Structures are given as structure tokens and as C-alpha cells.
């Protein structure tokens, strides 16, 4: 099978303007993946399936990944003009100072597709797509028209991560109920407080138990005990 670099070159030759980045995997498996840009992803997917040499006709898996906003601290050397007194004369002197700067790298949601070829007996080829952010611009093109196997799995990614797949024939929640508003697999998901005591509670679970007991106690005092048992 072609290496990821060769596949990248083949994609760029076949789909003009397609932005493909190799995402290296440092682990011993060395399963590098290809990051596609959302605009050309559909055309690229079609090429991967229909190309005679690659013939990636089987989609085995679609996964979502939630990447939170990341605060990056970096040290930068900055040259500044500083007023200094040299030999009794006031002068402006260049001075290099090391400064720490912080900036927030915005998070995003990611969809990962694992492709195999039944015809050529090779794979996997891993492709990724990333949304612009994790709040409002969460659209990605659906690859269901290319691989029908993606239908339910994209619905699952939509349900649990909140990625909206445009062009999906039937984008509804698949595991949680329709009225449900959250996306439970996101890292900032807050679980509902329906906790029950465990005999071996410790650490986080014990803290949750204490919080719940305090809450139930407070509700009992205000005469609102029936609302939450």
C-alpha cells in the first residue's frame, strides 16, 4: 500500500486545491493520518473510494474527538528601548528581555474515519476532519453519500459530540432521546445529579455523594424535598 505521503501526493494531484496535512503518529504503530480540509473533503473521499490503486471501498469506523481550548505559555525574547543612565548621561539603550506570553489556542471537534480496501486487501487509511471551533461552527461535510456505513456512526458522533454533518440524509440523535440537549462525550459535559450512595465510595465518588447529600438536605429545609429524592 502507498504510504501516507504518497496518498497525500495522489490526492493533491487528483483534487486540485485540496488541503491535506499529514498528522504523524509517534507511537510504534506509526499509523499516521491525513487531515482534510472541510471544503474538499467530500471530493477527496470520493477519490479515495474510486481510485483504482487505493480502492478504499470499506469504512470500518467513525470516531469523534473533543479537543478543548488549550492555553499555551511560551517564552519570547523581546528587544525594548529602555532609558538608562550611562556615565551620567540619560540615554536610550536596546535591551533584550525574556517575556512569558500566554495565548489560547481554540479547541475543535474532530471526526476520524478508518478506511480499508476489500478489493486490494489493504488498510487502514485514517482520515480526519476538524471543525472551526467547538461552539457554533461545528459543521463538517457528511461522508455518508460516499460510504453508506457512515450513516449511523455519524449520527452517533452528532449525538455524543455535537458535530453537525451537512449532507447527512437523516441526522437525528441515535442513542440519547430527541429532547436531550447535551453532548455527553464532550470533555466539559456535566453529568446530571442522580447520584446514589455506593458502599465503597472514595475520592471523586465520595465527594459527589457528599455534595448530593448536602443538596438533598438543603431542599428538605426549604420544603422542596419532593422535587429531587
Amino acid at each position, binding site marked *: 500500500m502507498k504510504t501516507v505521503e504518497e496518498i497525500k501526493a495522489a490526492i493533491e494531484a487528483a483534487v486540485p486545491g485540496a488541503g491535506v496535512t499529514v498528522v504523524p503518529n509517534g507511537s510504534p504503530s506509526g499509523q499516521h493520518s491525513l487531515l482534510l480540509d472541510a471544503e474538499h473533503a467530500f471530493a477527496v473521499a470520493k477519490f479515495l473510494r474510486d481510485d483504482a490503486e487505493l480502492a478504499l471501498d470499506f469504512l470500518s469506523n467513525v470516531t469523534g474527538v473533543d479537543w478543548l481550548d488549550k492555553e499555551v505559555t511560551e517564552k519570547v525574547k523581546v528587544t525594548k528601548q529602555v532609558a538608562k543612565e550611562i556615565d551620567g548621561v540619560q540615554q536610550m539603550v536596546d535591551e533584550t528581555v525574556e517575556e512569558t506570553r500566554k495565548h489560547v489556542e481554540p479547541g475543535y471537534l474532530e471526526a476520524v474515519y478508518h478506511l480499508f480496501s476489500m478489493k486490494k486487501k489493504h488498510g487502514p487509511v485514517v482520515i480526519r476532519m476538524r471543525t472551526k471551533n467547538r461552539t457554533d461552527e461545528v459543521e463538517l461535510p457528511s461522508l455518508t453519500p460516499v460510504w453508506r456505513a457512515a450513516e449511523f456512526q455519524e449520527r452517533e458522533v452528532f449525538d455524543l459530540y455535537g458535530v453537525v454533518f451537512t449532507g447527512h440524509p437523516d441526522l437525528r440523535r441515535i442513542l440519547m432521546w430527541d429532547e*436531550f440537549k447535551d453532548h455527553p462525550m464532550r470533555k466539559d459535559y456535566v453529568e446530571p445529579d442522580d447520584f*446514589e*450512595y455506593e458502599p465503597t465510595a472514595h475520592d471523586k465518588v465520595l465527594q459527589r455523594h457528599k455534595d448530593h447529600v448536602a443538596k*438533598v438536605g438543603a431542599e428538605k429545609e426549604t420544603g422542596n424535598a419532593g422535587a429531587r*429524592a
Partner: protein
Amino acid sequence: MDQNLKIELGKQGVFVTTIQELYNWGRKSSVWPMQFGLACCAIEMIATTMARYDLARFGAEVFRPSPRQADLMIVSGTVTKKMAPQVVRLYNQMAEPRYVIAMGACAISGGPFKQGYNVLKGIDRYIPVDVHIPGCPPRPEALIHAFMTLQKKIDGQSLTGENRPRHLDAEQQGEFPVPEQGKHDLEPPANPDVWHFPIIR
């Protein structure tokens, strides 16, 4: 009634009993379970009804596919929050007298999924449960044991007085509120008439 007198009369071909005994004997000997399974425990439940374990020996061979004809609900498996309203609705549709066996770790407490967001932490949050069986899944013998425990419970009930069965008490609740599927969780998260948060200090 004196047991010796009863035996003596029996020797003479006279059968003496009480209405209560006859009634409870009838109830306990033909408990028909409802035919529905929720997860892997259902496979054990099916095995229990088959020839090797043969639940028919206890008068429970007829699994009814309609809640209207069933007496016993075996909650066999994980109750997800998506499924919980339907389970409560099925229970409401069953005619009295009705019983519930919570089978396995999931049905009694959420089991291995207790820490998750989508599994109900025990069906006893919404409906009254008669017998709990631990196990993951419980063996067919355990289900048979639960069944015999239920039969003993039925046999011990008196038809009048304080602890009479629910269907003979006009004051008792007949229908149990079905939880709504809300934006973040089931609403309410438990029925306060049935279940209370266990406060252990």
C-alpha cells in the same frame, strides 16, 4: 384451624381450607411473566424457561407478550434512561395483582454502568420491586430462587388487615407516574413515593 384435625378430616375424604389459603395458592401457582428482555440477563431468563431449568415446574411457563395478560415483570437487564419511561408504562398497563423481579446488578442499581450518564440507577426508582436478585447475570438457579421467594411472599400475605396486598387496598396507588425525558436527565430522577435517597452516615 388445628392442623391435626385438618389431617384427620383429610383421611375421611373431607378437604378443609380457608379462602385465604385457596386464594394465595391460586395466585402463586400461576404467575405469568411478561415476555420482554432488556439485556444479557434476558438470555439467562430464556434459559430458565427452557427444558434444562424448566420454570414451568413453578407454574410460570406462559410468558405473555401483552402486559394486560401478565402478572410478573422480570426486569432482566440494563434499564437505560431512554427505555425507563417505557418500562414504567408497561408496568402501569399490567393488571393487578402484579409483581416485579429486578434481575441482575443493572436492574437493581445500574451495575457496572452506575457511573455513566445514560443508565437508570435501579428500576426501584420508579416502580415497587418485590424481589431483587444480584448477579451479573444471575444464574438460572438464582432466578428460580427469586421466583420461589416471590411465591413465599404471596403465600404469606393476608387478605385483610394492614399488610394486605396492594390490589386489595383501595387506598393504594394504582398508576405510577411515567418519567419525562428532559433536556439533561429524566424528570423527575426518581419517584419520591417509591424511592428515597439512602442517607448513610
